[in-house]
C-alpha cells in the first residue's frame, strides 16, 4: 500500500467521520419527543442526578450501573410512579443509601424522571424480530 493511498483512505475516513458527527448532533437526534418538555425543574433535576452520581447504580435506556434498576419509565410503570420513586429518594433502602436529599432536590429529580419517561421505553419488552436481525417495537 503506497503512502499516498494510505493518506487518502485515512483522510476520507476522517472526513466522513466529521460529517457523520454533524448528522448525529443534529438530524440524527432531533426526534426527542421530550425536548420541549424539559422544564426548569427537570433541567435542575438532571444536574442533581449527576451531582449524586446516580448513574453509578441506575440505568437510563439500559446504560449505567447494575446495582439498581433501570429508571427510564419508573414514573409510568405499573405499580410504580412518582410516589413510589419519592419514597426511595426520601429514605433509601438497604441497597440504596439515604442521600439526605432536600425537598427541592427530590422534586427536581422527580421532574427529571417524568421528562425521561416521556421520551421512550426501556427495557423494550414488546418487539418483533425481523428476518435481517433488526427489531421493530410493537
Amino acid at each position: 500500500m503506497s503512502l499516498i493511498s494510505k493518506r487518502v483512505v485515512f483522510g476520507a475516513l476522517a472526513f466522513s467521520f466529521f460529517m457523520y458527527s454533524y448528522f448525529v448532533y443534529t438530524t440524527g437526534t432531533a426526534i426527542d419527543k421530550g425536548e420541549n418538555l424539559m422544564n426548569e425543574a427537570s433541567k435542575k433535576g438532571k444536574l442533581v442526578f449527576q451531582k449524586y452520581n446516580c448513574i453509578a447504580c441506575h440505568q437510563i435506556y439500559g446504560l449505567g450501573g447494575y446495582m439498581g434498576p433501570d429508571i427510564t419509565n419508573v414514573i409510568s410503570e405499573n405499580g410504580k410512579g412518582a410516589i413510589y420513586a419519592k419514597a426511595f429518594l426520601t429514605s433509601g433502602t438497604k441497597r440504596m443509601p439515604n442521600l439526605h436529599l432536600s425537598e427541592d432536590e427530590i422534586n427536581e429529580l422527580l421532574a427529571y424522571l417524568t421528562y425521561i419517561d416521556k421520551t421512550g421505553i426501556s427495557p423494550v419488552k414488546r418487539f418483533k424480530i425481523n428476518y435481517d436481525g433488526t427489531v421493530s417495537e410493537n
Partner: protein
Amino acid sequence: MMALLVKIERKEIGIVFILLALLSLIGGVFFGSLSALQFIIPGFMNDFPFFKSRPLHVSLVVSWIFLSAIGGIYYYLPRYCKLPLFSNKLPRFHFWIFLFTGIVILGCYIIGKFGGRKYWEFPPILAVPIVISWILFGFNYFKTVARKVGEWPVYLWMWGTGILFFLFTFCESYLWIFPYFRDNIVRDITVQWKAYGALVGSWNMLVYGTVIFLMERIKGDESIARSRLSFLMYFLGLTNLLFGWAHHIYVVPTNPFIRNFAYFISMTELIILGRIIWNWKSSLTAAKKDFYLIPYKFIVASDFWILANLILALTISVPAINIFTHGTHITVAHAMGSTIGINTMILLASSVFLIADISKHEYSLTEKKIITGGFWVLNIFLTIFFLALLFAGAEKGMLIVEDKLNFQEIMQHISPYLTLFTLAGLGIFVGILLIAIPSIKTINKYLLQ
C-alpha cells in the same frame, strides 16, 4: 516522597509511567473487588458506598491502560524505533500533570464530589489538565515521528490515530456542558456513547499498536508491521472505531439510520474474526515455540481473549440478540473481558518486556515462577468471571423480557452467578498482585540504583 519522585522521573520517564500504571492497576482491581462485594452483600461498607468505590475502580483501571500504553511509547520510540523524542521535558510535564490531576480526581471521589457522567465521574473542570497533558503528548509524538525516514510501520499510524481520536472524543464527551446537548436526553445519551465508543476504540489503537510492535521485536520480523494486510486490518479497525459505536444504544430512540448503520459496520468485524480463525493454527504452532518467554505468554492469552470477545461483540451487535442482552451483565462481560483479557494482557506483556529490557535484569527464577503462577491464576479466574457474567446476563435478559419478576426478584435469581463472579474477581486480584509486585520491585531496584 516528592523528592524521591523527582529523582526517579529524571532517570527514564517511560519506566516511571509504567510504575505509576502498575500501582493504578493494583488500586483499580482492589476497588473493583470492593465494588463486587458491595454488589452481593447489600449494606457492605455503607460508609463508603458503591457510587464511590465504582468510579475509583473505573478511573484507576483506565489510568492503568493509558499510563502503561504511554510509558511504552515514550520508551520504545527512542530505544527501538531510532526516534529520539523531540522533547525530553514535555513527557515530564505530562507525567506531573497526570499525577496531580489523578490525585485530585481520586480525592473528589472519596469526598463525594462528582461530575456524574458514566466513566468520567469527576467534576468536568478536571478534564482541562487532562486535555493539556494529552496535547503535550500528541505534539511531542508527531514532532518525533515526523523525522522518521521511509514509510511508517503500522504501529506508528495506530499510536498517532489513538492520540488524535482520544483528544477529539474526550472533548466530545464534554459537549453535555452545552444546553443544546444537555437538554435533550436522546441527543445527550447518543453523543455520550458516540464519544465513549470511539474513545475506547482510540485507546485500543494505542494498545493494539503496542502488541504489533512487541510481536515485531519478539519475532524479529519487520514485515509484521509493514504488510498490506496489516494496513487493511488497521483501516478496518479505524472504520469500526469511527462508525461502529451505536450498537451500545440500539434502544435509544434515535434516527433509525444510526442504528442500522452501526449494525452494518459492526458486522464488518466478521472479516477480522475470519482472519483470526484462518491464522489460528499457525499462531498455535508459533505460540508453542516461544511460550517460555513471559511477554509472549501474555500475548498468546490476549489472542485467545480477542477471539472470545470478538465473538461476543459480534453476537450482541445483532439487534435481535441485543434486545435480550442490553442492560445485562453480558455487556459487563464484554467490557471486562476486553479490558482485562485483551488490553491488560497486552499491556502486561509490554510492561514485563520493558522492565526486563531497561533493568538488564532477567527476572530471577523465583520471580519468573511467581509471574507465571500469576499469569495462570489471572487467566483461570478471568475465565470463571467471564462465564459467570455471561450466565447472569443471559438469565437476567430472559427474565426482563418475560416480565414476570421485579428487579429485586431478578437479582435474587442471578445471585449465585454474581457470587461466583465476585469470588473470581478476588482471584483476579491475587493474579494481578503476583504479576505486579515482582515487577514493581524490579523497577524500584533500577530506579533507586
